[in-house]
């Protein structure tokens, strides 16, 4: 078949292209341009000045926040993936078809609840005098400090990402060739060892992509670090809002945002490359 553009092919490919060009590329370009603007007298002015880049990149507090956010998001991706895996494994390998379908349905439900509302509700559970500590107190434990620190932030990230990560993991585990599992058993590979040596390598691409999603969502999220982390210490997303508080410093915030976008693209690219890397030559 010829693949020259036809009325047909353009009908399907152009709308998205036009829409994203019109409504996304321009805002994105604006963002890039904005990062070279200057602010005078609380007003942003079109300009071409690298001052914002120099200023942001020369501040150690930016780099602290940058690496902290990177660390938090990585920890989130790893911890959530680790927590999710036994559940995903059990759903995919230990449940019947019907139970599996129900479980997937149940895990879709959180997507239809407001993240803000969930985080707000979590505050009530996590605070020093909250429901969880009251419950632990019953058991003679605690109180533990679970709010306004990285634990709180990570808990929030988990609220945001865990259902998605489990779902993505289940989908990739469902594709693991069951013969491979039996073949491994047949070759003296015990239960746990098979998970490590066969199931995880087989589902690697999906597991990495699931982790990547957790990373992307956590890296950019500002709700959890603010409402559960108490902004203490701040992440990049909080820093963006902070920067605007020095009187309309959106251009500098744009520098941070562009750095975040670049980071996410790099990580995504590396993760996808790793996910699909093959053994051997």
């Amino acid at each position, binding site marked *: 078949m010829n693949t020259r553009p036809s009325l047909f092919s353009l009908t399907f490919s152009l709308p998205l292209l036009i829409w994203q060009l019109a409504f996304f590329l321009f805002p994105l370009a604006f963002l890039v341009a904005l990062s070279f603007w200057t602010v005078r007298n*609380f007003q942003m002015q079109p300009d071409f000045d690298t001052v914002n880049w120099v200023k942001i990149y020369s501040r150690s507090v930016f780099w602290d926040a940058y690496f*902290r956010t990177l660390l938090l998001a990585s920890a989130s991706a790893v911890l959530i993936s680790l927590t999710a895996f036994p559940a995903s494994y059990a759903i995919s390998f230990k449940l019947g078809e019907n139970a599996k379908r129900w479980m997937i349905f149940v895990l879709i439900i959180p997507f239809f609840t407001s993240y803000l509302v969930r985080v707000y509700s979590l505050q009530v559970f996590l605070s020093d005098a909250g429901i969880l500590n009251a419950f632990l107190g019953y058991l003679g434990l605690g109180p533990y400090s679970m709010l306004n620190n990285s634990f709180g932030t990570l808990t929030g990230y988990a609220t945001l990402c865990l259902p998605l990560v489990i779902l993505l993991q289940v989908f990739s585990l469902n594709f693991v060739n069951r013969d491979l599992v039996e073949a491994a058993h047949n070759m003296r590979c015990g239960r746990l060892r098979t998970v490590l040596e066969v199931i995880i390598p087989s589902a690697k691409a999906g597991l990495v992509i699931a982790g990547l999603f957790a990373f992307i969502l956590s890296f950019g999220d500002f709700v959890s670090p603010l409402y559960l982390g108490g902004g203490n*210490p701040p992440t990049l997303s909080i820093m963006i809002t*902070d920067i605007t*508080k020095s009187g*309309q410093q959106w251009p500098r915030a744009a520098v941070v945002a562009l750095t975040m976008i670049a980071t996410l693209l790099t990580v995504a690219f590396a993760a996808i490359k790793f996910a699909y890397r093959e053994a051997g030559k």
Partner: protein
Amino acid sequence: TPFLSIRAAAETVNLSMLAWYGHAEPDVVGEFEELHNVKFIPKYYTGGDNMLGLIAQSPPGTYDVILSDAEYVQQLNAAGYIEELDPNDYAFDDFFPEFQRFPGHWKDGKLYSVITRFGFLGISYNAEVLSESDAASYNIFGDSRLTGKLGHFDWHLPNLGQISLLNGNPDPFDLSDEAWQQVQDSTMALRGQVGGFFDYGGTFSSLKNGQMTAFAGIGDWITGVLEKNGANVRTAIPEEGGLQWTESFSIGKGSRNQEMARKWIQYITSPEGQAKSADMAAYPALIPNKKGWVQLNDANPAEAKRQNMVLGSRNAIDLIREGRIKYRQLPVQQSLEDWNDFWSDYKGA
């Protein structure tokens, strides 16, 4: 029912208001809406800078009336986002003298904004843990009982202003480089005490649920609401003095309802409007109109008393006159950015 009120709104004037949450709720605007057959369309913001960003990128005329903190009036004006007002339209004569020509609201003799309410910022604390005498000095921030339990309202101006007061600066925002350095040092010394940096909502809940024992940078606008809901929290103005926040109304540049906007500002600065404003459901405040005080004392003596707005006895205005209260304002000798940068460093430390 909701449907009827939506239909009714269709025939009336729509007046858009850009404000902090609560200023266009029925308890404040209801009477005015009925009186003038207008309907307020509120746009609530959650931070002055977002508000400025929003206005900056919206077409002129989007917002008819704009409520902002006094510091932002200058910025709004400098950027040309608000209309000049006619001083004769407003009953400044009824105002306490200190609010008749409020700084930043006038430029080159022209009026741009009318003060509508204000409040004091001091030490907000949980009265079950701290006593009033504990809260008599900002030094309590360093107390071991507050380790991990000291909250900051996440904005540099009120917090750094308070530390500046603690350092004994007579004008907390007009600092020599040396004094500014000392403010930074004193602030940084507190970092280990801090349990979190909160926005409005976070401030509310963490004081209420006991997560934070004391807060810097807030006042009765938080604790007043919590008190009304039965929480044992207070705000004290310590010996070193307190700060004053101020909210003012302006008319948005290019508004097509300037007449109605003017009427609204007149109404909310009138004695009736002022009495409502003082007891606004979202958060209470002091009012600059003396006749408003009278009205409030008639209508709601308990609230007048709670907020210390009783004429004839030692009241809130006296605190200002005694010099215990300083207006919150933009830094004079440093740039706003310097302060903000330090605040970021502090948070990130």
